[in-house]
């Protein structure tokens, strides 16, 4: 009995003009969003390839540590076509003297003047439009039949009310599911065809799981529409109720939580945490610039400063050897005092992120009855665009940094980029020139024959100056470094079982709420006056 009824229901749906209108609208939206997102993703892949090439080139051509700027590069997440989720930086340039957090430089196209992030992806389409679309299909499925009079005739058949409701629900469900599934799998096929290089098994698993979530979502809303249509006998009234419920679910309730309740609960803790983070950063800056003891203060000895073609030595205070020793002491000071504080700052940053993850989980539990909120957060987890993924990216980047530091921690690692130039030039000079006098003349010429260097030479005598230079040459090996072996950063991905374990609780809640809604609808229809 059920199958002929289902067929009848589907046929009825197919005859309605309203359905064609909505399906056409949905398909148009789906196609537009998908194409735009796919183009965007292609752009991301191109940028990723450029970044990798640049990184490899840098590593290949580097002759000393100061020229190496290793980058942690993240592969673009293919599922961002379906769910943009939490925006994760794509490239982090590892700088040894700064904490690695989300605030690092990004290789992104960000408009300075207008920072609106778009959310127009397939997930938005589903949560915002598909829910509306289902409610618009199903708002008059029971009381509409009553108005036409067919409900009374149906009830004269030996048919349980339960199976009537089941048939109604399945009819709407199959119809909407089909409308979603066909373009969805077509687009998955398109992706498989076009982006072969970046595919993985995880993608297909995620794709199937995402589809499963959408099915649950559709089930919930078809039941909700039918439930509302059982509540009142007037279809116009149930339409208004449906729109009301939709506005509440998709806009009003989430907004009131985010802007009224959540700030009251968490703002103090968050301010405290971010204040702690800022304090750590300030402390680090104080250590770097203000609290340097005299024996490590490089401002007290000379620098070689370079601009364009000219560079100047100002070694009149201490001389080469003392200068080098002072620099060395400064770097040791930085390593011992500055580094631990930056690690603390990283910890503080992570704490903020963990608090935010906690907030998001609480939000999920508060909105356990609201599939729009649940679907948003669950799909972000599945597609690998959640805040957890950001944390993991940061963690692995820090691991890479630590690995590099451990490979050959040397003073040069810890230098500010402004000072690198000194070593670069010296090594250049020393690689190219063998005669010490040439070297001297070169530096002399570079200095323009003027300035402190001349005074210095005059002061200590040419012989002694050449002695210093000889010392420099003897230390040549110090600059002629053996580069450590670098491995290219590879983005770690959460395995599917990990993701599943994380979202299982919400999934159970989702299913339970669907069952509860089903029981409610069924009980409601038992008391529905079909006369």
């Amino acid at each position, binding site marked *: 009995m059920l199958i002929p009824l289902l067929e009848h229901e589907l046929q009825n749906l197919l005859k309605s003009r309203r359905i064609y209108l909505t399906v056409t609208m949905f398909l148009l939206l789906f196609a537009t969003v998908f194409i735009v997102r796919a183009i*965007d993703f292609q752009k991301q892949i191109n940028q990723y390839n450029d970044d990798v090439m640049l990184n490899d080139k840098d590593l290949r051509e580097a002759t000393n540590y100061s020229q190496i700027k290793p980058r942690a590069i993240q592969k673009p997440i293919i599922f961002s076509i379906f769910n943009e989720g939490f925006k994760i930086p794509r490239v982090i340039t590892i700088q040894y003297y700064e904490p690695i957090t989300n605030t690092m430089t990004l290789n992104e*196209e960000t408009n300075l003047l*207008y920072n609106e992030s778009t959310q127009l992806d397939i997930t*938005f389409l589903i949560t915002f439009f598909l829910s509306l679309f289902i409610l618009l299909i199903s708002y008059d499925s029971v009381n509409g039949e009553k108005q036409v009079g067919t409900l009374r005739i149906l009830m004269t058949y030996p048919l349980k009310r339960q199976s009537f409701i089941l048939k109604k629900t399945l009819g709407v469900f199959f119809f909407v599911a089909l409308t979603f599934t066909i373009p969805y799998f077509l687009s998955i096929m398109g992706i498989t065809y076009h982006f072969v290089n970046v595919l993985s098994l995880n993608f297909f698993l995620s794709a199937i799981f995402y589809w499963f979530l959408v099915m649950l979502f559709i089930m919930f809303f078809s039941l909700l529409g039918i439930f509302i249509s059982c509540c009142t006998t007037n279809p116009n009234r149930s339409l208004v109720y449906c729109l009301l419920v939709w506005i509440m679910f998709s806009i009003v309730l989430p907004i009131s939580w985010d802007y009224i309740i959540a700030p009251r609960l968490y703002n103090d803790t968050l301010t405290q945490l971010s204040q702690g983070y800022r304090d750590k950063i300030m402390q680090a800056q104080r250590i770097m610039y203000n609290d340097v003891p005299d024996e490590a203060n490089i401002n007290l000895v000379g620098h070689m400063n370079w601009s364009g073609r000219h560079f100047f030595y100002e070694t009149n205070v201490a001389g080469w050897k003392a200068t080098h020793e002072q620099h060395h002491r400064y770097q040791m000071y930085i390593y011992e005092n500055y580094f631990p504080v930056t690690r603390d700052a990283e910890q503080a940053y992570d704490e903020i992120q963990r608090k935010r993850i906690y907030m998001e989980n609480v939000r999920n539990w508060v909105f356990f009855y609201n599939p729009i909120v649940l679907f948003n957060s669950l799909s972000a987890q599945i597609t690998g665009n959640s805040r957890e993924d950001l944390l993991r990216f940061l963690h692995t980047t820090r691991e890479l940094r630590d690995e590099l530091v451990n490979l050959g921690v040397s003073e040069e690692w810890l230098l500010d980029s402004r000072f690198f130039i000194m070593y670069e030039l010296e090594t250049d000079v020393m690689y190219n020139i063998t005669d010490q006098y040439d070297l001297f003349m070169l530096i002399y010429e570079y200095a323009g024959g003027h300035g402190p260097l001349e005074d210095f030479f005059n002061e200590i005598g040419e012989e002694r100056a050449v002695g210093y230079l000889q010392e420099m040459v003897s230390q040549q090996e110090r600059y002629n470094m053996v580069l450590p072996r670098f491995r290219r950063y590879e983005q770690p991905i959460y395995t599917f079982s990990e993701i599943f374990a994380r979202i299982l609780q919400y999934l159970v809640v989702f299913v339970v709420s669907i069952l509860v809604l089903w029981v409610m609808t069924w009980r409601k229809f038992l008391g529905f006056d079909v006369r």
Partner: protein
Amino acid sequence: MNQIILVKDIRLMFKDLKFQIFFLILVVLFILSAISSSVSFISKQKSFQNERNRFNDLVADGQHIQLIQLLQNRMLMVASPPSPAVLFSEYDNYPDIINTGIMFYEPEFSNNNIGLRRMFRLNWLFILGMIMGLMMLIMSFEAISQEKRAGTLRLLTINGVKRQSIIWHKYISYLILYLIVIIPASMTSMILFFALTGTWSMTFMLKFLLIILISIPFASFFVWLGIFISMSKNHRNTIVMVMFIWAFFVVIVPQAAIIIAKQVSSIKTVIEYREIREQARYDEMMRQAEEENDIMSLSFEDFFALLASNINVADEKKNQALQREIEENMRQTRMIRGIAGISPFMQFVNISEIVFDKGFYLLNFQQETTKQAINQIKNLMIEQDSRDETSHNLLYSYAYVQRLVFNRRGETPFSEELFEHPHLLFVTEIETDDVPSKIMEILMKLIPILVLNLVLMVGAVGKFERLDIR
């Protein structure tokens, strides 16, 4: 007779369940918006005050307004202070504060309120722009078809009421309804907001009233649209159409505008821009280095002056590159706004920006003000420089400070004098257009929506004339 029809229409609408539910929702939303906006206003004010305190501390320190330090640091701040306009919209897509050095316009845009970024915020813009459009559509999408079904339309025409006057009364009664709903709720919200934040100003009250006045043509657009749709045969199909039209204007167009503009008028990545800037500077330095031949014959001081001036020129080149970068950003933003302008909702946003002196409208003026402030400060500094013998070379010294010296103790070739006008460094008053030209601009921006109204009106009236009401 006409009055009777009008009163009847309004009474019918009052009895409508849709109206009652929507009225309830709107009142609740308006009150909630006042509460949430007051929270965000207070936190914004706090962070602005922090910024100001930080600045005052720096000034009191004295170190930071020494000329030499001023040249080194980014000390000039042009900020638009938080105002009760928050109740209407946060406008937080745009920077609040421009930090820049005092020699060149090299801005850093900072935004105090980057926090939760969601598509919808709870404020008047959300209620008046989004929910109100939907409400007017849903209220009016069966205006004619309901009367037709009930048979009252036939009776009215028999009684000799003109068709035109029927449709006009419908329209006017919906507008009156709109005002009845909006005015008390919004006034409550406004008073609540002023009470909660402890700020009251006549100007802002007038501005809020003005924005309600401006919202009328937008509401009327949706009413005409609803009436037009209500004349179709199957009214239940039309509701789908209505919902999609609304979603198209409110969500799809603004969002799609961003995506399209990013593809069409694309900007470079942050790193690429930085490289271009540095390259421009480096190229200029290299060019100068090739030109110089007889630097050997210069005295030490002259040599430094020459070098420093060269660096100055090179910095200017760098800043020109930065200017181009900002222009590209502006172009993209303008394109986003242009495409999004198709939607009346976004037009409403544009007009509100002019009313409240915020957002993209302010951004141009903010940049202009910053440039003016730089010029003013530079002149003052040169003037001060001319009075002091020890700081004979301020402009050149700048470059020298920037590139060639790391704060050596006790030996600076510059004056230790303080900058005499530290209050010029924190600008909060940004000059915008005067009132008449603002009104002109608002009227110009209202033209498209008025034309749309007119077209829909002509269409609806014409269609109703030919409508089969049997």
